């Protein structure tokens, strides 16, 4: 075999291997998707059936039984709402830490990260009781507040690591031209970091959409987002996998497709810019 042929063979083998791994890891999702178009009988047939006449019946029943639209709307409101609020609070903080670092900046950042280390169960009881006393149980307001605070440290970190890499000269030039701090942020920093801010927002939306601890414990029906709606399908032990799959597909599809489009930015974001 010549060197060239060897190289070609290596490429083919790598490709085969990579495709196998990817297909194995993706299989459960593929199966969920396929099952959602089956009848209940086909869903539990052994051996598993791969070819069948697809039906949309399950999706109709899911909407009827648990009002998908209502829960999807809750998910949208809580994840987008809390992301917007968190960004408004985090941008000034990240800006001031990145451009005017003090002696304590690093400590403050590490402290913020350490609040993420505080396990949610440690404060479950007080938060539950506070929500109960202020009539916030099963309300979107409570979830928005909690999601905002939950993701704030990560958002500050990410924005900070992006802002830090912006060339300082541009800001100095703007200042020479008489820009006020407000102009600096609005006319220079923000336009330069549209990409950074949007990938931060994406990550925060994904984390909120899939958050399950608080939504399971603090909501029942009115404010229940999709994560909690799906959990309600776990209790009755009946065999209704087709409907379960339809509900799951509906719950995950928006965020999975959303994730496909921005997976590259998400990696950068989730690793605080440490991996590029």
């Amino acid at each position, binding site marked *: 075999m010549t060197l060239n042929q060897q190289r070609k063979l290596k490429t083919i083998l790598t490709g085969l291997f990579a495709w196998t791994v990817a297909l194995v890891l993706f299989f459960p*999702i593929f199966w969920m998707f396929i099952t959602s178009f089956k009848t209940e009988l086909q869903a539990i047939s052994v051996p598993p059936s791969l070819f069948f006449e697809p039906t949309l019946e399950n999706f109709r029943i899911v909407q009827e039984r648990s009002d998908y639209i209502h829960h999807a709307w809750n998910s949208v409101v809580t994840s987008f709402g809390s992301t917007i609020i968190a960004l408004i609070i985090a941008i000034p903080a990240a800006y001031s830490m990145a451009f005017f670092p003090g002696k304590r900046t690093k400590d403050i950042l590490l402290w913020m990260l350490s609040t993420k280390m505080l396990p949610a169960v440690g404060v479950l009881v007080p938060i539950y009781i506070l929500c109960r006393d202020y009539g916030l149980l099963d309300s979107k307001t409570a979830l928005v507040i909690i999601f905002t605070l939950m993701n704030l440290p990560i958002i500050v970190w990410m924005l900070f690591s992006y802002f830090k890499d912006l060339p300082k000269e541009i800001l100095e030039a703007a200042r020479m031209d008489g820009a006020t701090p407000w102009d600096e942020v609005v006319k220079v920093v923000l336009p330069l970091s549209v990409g950074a801010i949007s990938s931060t927002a994406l990550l925060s939306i994904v984390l909120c959409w899939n958050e*399950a601890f608080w939504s399971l414990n603090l909501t029942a029906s009115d404010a229940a987002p999709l994560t909690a709606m799906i959990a309600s399908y776990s209790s009755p032990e009946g065999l209704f996998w087709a409907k379960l799959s339809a509900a799951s597909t509906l719950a995950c599809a928006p965020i999975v497709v959303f994730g496909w489009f921005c997976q590259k930015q998400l990696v950068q974001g989730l690793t605080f810019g440490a991996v590029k």
Partner: protein
Amino acid sequence: MKRSITRLLMAPSVIMLLVWMIIPLSMTIYFSTIRYNLLYPGQNNFVGWMNFEFFITDPGFIPAVSNTLILLLSVLIITVVLGVMLSALIDKPFFGQGIVRVLLISPFFIMPTVNALIWKNMMMNPVYGIFAWISQSLGLQPIDWLSSYPLMSVIIMVSWQWLPFAILVFVTALQSQDSEQKEAAQMDGATGWHIFRYLTIPHLARPIAVVVMIETIFLLAVFAEIFVSTGGGPGYDSTNLAYLIYNQALLQYDVGVASAGGLFAVLLANIVAFFLIRAVGKNLTV
């Protein structure tokens, strides 16, 4: 710019996080020292360490702590080891790389409740599941995963969620590896293993640190997977700290004991964080 303005800009974030940390935490500390059961209101006398004694002597305590740590370590090892190996193997150009990337990352976006339901029903069900069908086709006895190996089932579910994340981070990091260095090593007769051991692994030190840190934050708090799939059972076989405390607080209404448990979870997380933040803090440029 004046110091006061920079402080002012940071203030909302810092104050909100401080409030978010201090108020619930001090309430937890207070509740943990009084008798407080939602079923018996009004009998809230001071009981000292009793709640802690109760929590620590609970039959679920030791299993919960060990399950929490086993879950954390197993998933970390599985995702990092497999992640490094798989990403090193697929870090070459091949047909359909973009699609493979998209397929690989997908499990990461599946919400934990759905994750648990897919695995519990469609994969691990002892009669109709895919695993059962595979064992049957091979002439083996199907395994009832959730009742025979509950903790391992949870580990599989959680690893499935986090392995894609690890692979993607490592693949991204490998793309910045110096290929000339690799070629030079090859010229000098280095084997594939040597290149992996002495060039790839050191290059991945920092991404590994980051992956470990982020996963730890989320793995110490695994809840929904257990809630939906095994319910902590059978017995306490798949109960972790988060689930045990949830059980005390919202199922047995014992706020006092649950608060004591919450403080214990905070303590455990702090011990882990102490080592972790130190190790990782060095690797993150601030």
